[in-house]
């Protein structure tokens, strides 16, 4: 295939303990470390491996968000993507608008494959890939743990609740990655320098003429209920007694 499109979302880093703002209006993101959504890194790694095997010519990374997302796109370019597209949106975009924006990019670039993470670790939605596939009228292979390309089709092993499901899909298609599809490479310093010279196009979201969608309104953000700290027991006998006390043994 010619091109693979990979989505990179800028999210609060995996290791940050997220807190609700004191007025409940959102989540504290000021001064917090931001990173590429870990599942999207896996998506990019998969695309790069496909290209390195000679099964694709170009890997394009795309992000939808504020101009700050250029950092994550540059990281993607340093990992090995050929060029980047930032769809610039001032406000948080909802999932279906993101899918519609991606579809516009798909229509411009005509990729043979779109690879995304299975979910973003901020909103934990797990929607964008499926929505893009639906709007595009193409197959989706979600939660992929192995991808094998066979010309016009792909065989994908999916991580489902009971085990591993294999499906065949016609290309072009959307694949969303699960954790163990691959281990993303580390970025090396010379690649960071090289990435600065790679093209990064910025397209204002408004230019894509995306239809307005019925919005979900966030009405409150709250910390979850905390579990009460329990009791400590000294030994196995104490543990068994405590479990019997609760009627669990």
């Amino acid at each position, binding site marked *: 295939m010619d091109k693979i499109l990979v989505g990179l979302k800028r999210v609060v880093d995996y290791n940050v303990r997220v807190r609700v703002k004191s007025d409940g209006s959102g989540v504290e993101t000021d001064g917090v470390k931001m990173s590429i959504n870990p599942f999207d890194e896996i998506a990019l790694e998969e695309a790069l491996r496909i290209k390195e095997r000679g099964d694709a010519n170009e890997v394009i990374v795309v992000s939808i968000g504020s101009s700050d997302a250029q950092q994550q796109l540059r990281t993607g370019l340093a990992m090995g993507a050929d060029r980047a597209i930032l769809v610039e949106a001032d406000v948080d975009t909802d999932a279906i608008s993101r899918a519609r924006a991606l579809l516009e990019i798909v229509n411009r670039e005509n990729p043979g494959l779109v690879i995304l993470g299975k979910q973003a670790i901020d909103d934990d939605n797990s929607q964008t890939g*499926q929505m893009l596939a639906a709007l595009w009228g193409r197959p989706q292979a979600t939660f992929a743990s192995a991808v094998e390309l066979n010309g016009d089709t792909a065989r994908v092993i999916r991580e489902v609740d*009971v085990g591993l499901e*294999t499906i065949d899909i*016609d290309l072009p298609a959307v694949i969303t990655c699960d*954790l163990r599809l691959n281990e993303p490479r580390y970025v090396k310093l010379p690649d960071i320098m090289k990435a600065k010279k790679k093209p990064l196009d910025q397209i204002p979201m408004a230019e894509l003429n995306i239809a307005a969608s*019925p919005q979900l309104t966030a009405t409150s953000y709250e910390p979850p209920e905390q579990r009460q700290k329990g009791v*400590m027991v000294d030994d196995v006998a104490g543990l068994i007694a405590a479990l019997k006390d609760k009627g669990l043994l």
Partner: protein
Amino acid sequence: MSKILVIAEHDGQTLNPSTAKTVACAADINGATIDVVVFAESAAEVAAQAAKLDSVDRVVTIENPANAKALAAVIAPQAVALAANYSHVFGPSSTFGKDLMPRIAALLGVNQISDIMSVVSSHSFQRPIYAGNVVLTVEAPADHPVVATVRTASYRSVDSNNSASIEAAVCDAVIPTHTRYVELKAGSSDRPDLQTAAKVISGGRALASSENFELIYALADKMGAGVGASRAAVDAGYVPNEMQVGQTGKIIAPDLYVAIGISGAIQHLTGIKDAGTIVAINKDAEAPIFEVADIGLVGDLFSVVPELTNSLE
């Protein structure tokens, strides 16, 4: 008034318990009528089970050879054709529902509400974000269908004392052939299913090898428990992927959860926070798992676990 369509999850013979939990969530919406739709090649067996679920008003069956396996691309256009008669379309937040429901939402031109953990009103719901660190309340517009997945760990299955009517329906959606089922390799285990087991024993990285996981299996078998694992244990290759409990694995709510050699990363804790009783066994007294454990035991799992197993009849 809310008319809710619940999409049944099943394997062709047996209704998945996730459906009874999704119905439980739908039943939390005041005055709702609830229909369950079964997409199948032959639906009778599954439909009969769905008809027994309390709160269900009607079971609708859509039989088609294309529905022999649950492929999102195949089911979505049929569900969309049905959705015109409903205010809400719900599915479980299992891999089945997570795969399917956003595809339905997109075809209906709406956003999806993922992982409902509680119903505020017919169009307002609570859901976890940031690995459960934040509870978000969202309101859906009243003039559009609400498409949602239900966080099954937040709900208890409705009882099965009902006898709802079963009606066959046809739907004239165009069914794509671009997605084809090949095979399913289910984890072979005689132990209780991780997602529905009343008791779950999980092991972490401290087990240090897949051989040592036998300690966990032996204890689980003594207690009649399902077995899970932390991401670290799965990443290390000690156990298969489907055993992972946490943000990116399975979200479970057993009556008893025993975490052995698991430090308790936030991503793991989000998978167990609805457990009835959490027991932690860890040699590190500072491990975060003790912050959420109801019963904690600081000790070396390699001596504690065999002793515990041997102490149980």
